[in-house]
């Protein structure tokens, strides 16, 4: 079914009887050409592009719970491509371009809103680093603008520039960055994949891989064995747990990242803003909630919840730049589990097991990567070669010393 304004009006006038399920609820078949494990944003996007762009058939997405229930449904919805390093920037720019055409592509309004993202600068060294980054963005074909404090103040008049412990000395803006309605991304990809014949199988937990003679033949699931020509894993947050079933140890740790939303407020924040001297970033949703976040809790965790010190740390950052937010109320806090990789960058690669492919290690940047991650993983699964924008995301980069370390924090995941 194609969604349109006309369809909405027609249904409104005829009692909404014509809407059908957004995706089917099929029973699993005995064998698929390609199985994607993980019905989150990346897994669903992978299935969608496999079917639509790479014309693959007989694809299934296996989700242990309900689709969209993982990090795609619990993030701060930011999209951007303001990366520094050559291994990253082309990929994230590819992703941003996919975002820009996504809604028309999959016929679902995910409310892609390019309201801009602004990173505040507080020191001269930070300015040098941001200029280098902004230049790298432009040299890679992305957009970037260096803003003066006055320009920022004009856009955010209530920003604390008078009594700031760390004065604001400008900012790096990417006007094409912004936010997206996160749940709609999962649903849009699911609906799009389903319409191209992908089987989305919910409540189907993968409990093991059937590997014989170095080849993956399929997966054991809570609904029985399902055979597959190729298996792609995209289970952010649970990557180590899943891949341990194929006897793999991954270069990552699982960490909890909290996110926060305030009660609904009339519009105050035009775009996404990131504090450069504390842990705080914030945007405002279409419903009016201030959506904000900060640093990891910092310890390995699979519990989808955090603790008070980080809540306080984030709110301190918020009050440091927006002292008027003190009277807004925090409505809800939640935690997501991040695959924090050893250099802060992801992996999209084949494994040493024939037919088993991996996508993970997105740290806390997975949401913005969703379209390109899906596209590139689909490319890899379909062609057995990396997509040109994702050639650096290899497993062996650590052994070879080819890390993609944006923050320069080294092999300690919680510092990225």
């Amino acid at each position: 079914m194609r969604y349109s304004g006309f369809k909405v009006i027609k249904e409104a006038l005829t009692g909404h009887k014509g809407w059908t399920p957004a995706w089917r609820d099929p029973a699993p078949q005995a064998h698929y050409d390609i199985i994607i494990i993980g019905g989150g944003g990346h897994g669903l996007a992978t299935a969608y592009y496999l079917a639509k762009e790479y014309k693959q058939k007989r694809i299934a997405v296996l989700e242990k719970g309900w689709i969209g229930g993982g990090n795609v449904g619990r993030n701060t919805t930011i999209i951007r491509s303001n990366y520094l390093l050559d291994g990253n920037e082309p990929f994230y720019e590819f992703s941003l371009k996919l975002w820009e055409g996504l809604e028309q592509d999959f016929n679902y309004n995910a409310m892609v809103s390019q309201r801009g993202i602004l990173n505040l600068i507080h020191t001269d060294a930070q300015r040098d680093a941001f200029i280098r980054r902004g230049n790298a963005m432009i040299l890679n074909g992305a957009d970037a603008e260096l803003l003066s404090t006055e320009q920022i103040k004009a856009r955010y008049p209530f920003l604390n520039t008078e009594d700031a412990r760390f004065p604001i000395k400008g900012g790096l803006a990417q006007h094409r960055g912004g936010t997206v309605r996160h749940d709609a991304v999962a649903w849009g990809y699911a609906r799009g994949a389903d319409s191209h014949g992908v089987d989305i199988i919910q409540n189907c937990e993968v409990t093991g891989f059937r590997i014989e003679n170095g080849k993956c033949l399929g997966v054991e699931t809570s609904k029985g064995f399902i055979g597959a020509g190729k298996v792609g894993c995209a289970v952010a947050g649970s990557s180590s747990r899943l891949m341990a079933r194929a006897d793999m140890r991954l270069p990552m740790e699982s960490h909890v990242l909290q996110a926060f939303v305030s009660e609904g407020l009339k519009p105050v924040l035009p775009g996404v803003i990131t504090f450069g001297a504390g842990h705080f970033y914030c945007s405002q949703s279409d419903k009016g909630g201030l959506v904000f976040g900060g640093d990891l809790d910092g310890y390995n965790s699979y519990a989808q919840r955090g603790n008070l010190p980080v809540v306080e740390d984030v709110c301190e950052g918020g009050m440091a730049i927006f002292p008027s937010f003190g009277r807004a109320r925090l409505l809800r806090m939640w935690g997501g589990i991040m695959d924090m990789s050893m250099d802060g960058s992801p992996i999209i690669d084949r494994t040493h097991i024939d037919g088993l492919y991996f996508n993970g290690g997105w740290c806390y940047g997975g949401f913005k990567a969703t379209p390109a991650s899906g596209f590139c993983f689909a490319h890899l699964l379909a062609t057995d070669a990396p997509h040109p924008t994702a050639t650096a995301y290899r497993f062996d980069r650590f052994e070879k010393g080819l890390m993609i370390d944006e923050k320069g924090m080294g092999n300690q995941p919680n510092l990225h």
Partner: protein
Amino acid sequence: MIIDHPLLGPRDSSEFTYMGDAKLIDRPDPDADTAARDFYEYGYLRDNPAGWHDELWFHEAGDRSWLVVTRNTLTHEISKVQLARDVARNRGRSK
């Protein structure tokens, strides 16, 4: 969270800095033939278990002890806290 420091008793976890898996104590032999591979695995690969995890915490705002904390990553329950130095000695580290 609260970490029951073996010398100082229960302390709030915000006094500590976290590093990661206590296997970081087991620094490989740099002279072994397999040193390159060993250091790669030591430096980059993690068990990352969902469950009990021995991990290193540094009492940065306290007595500057490194501790090995046995904590469940699913529930955050802590079952054991040891001085990392004792653990290191028990695992055969010396000079």
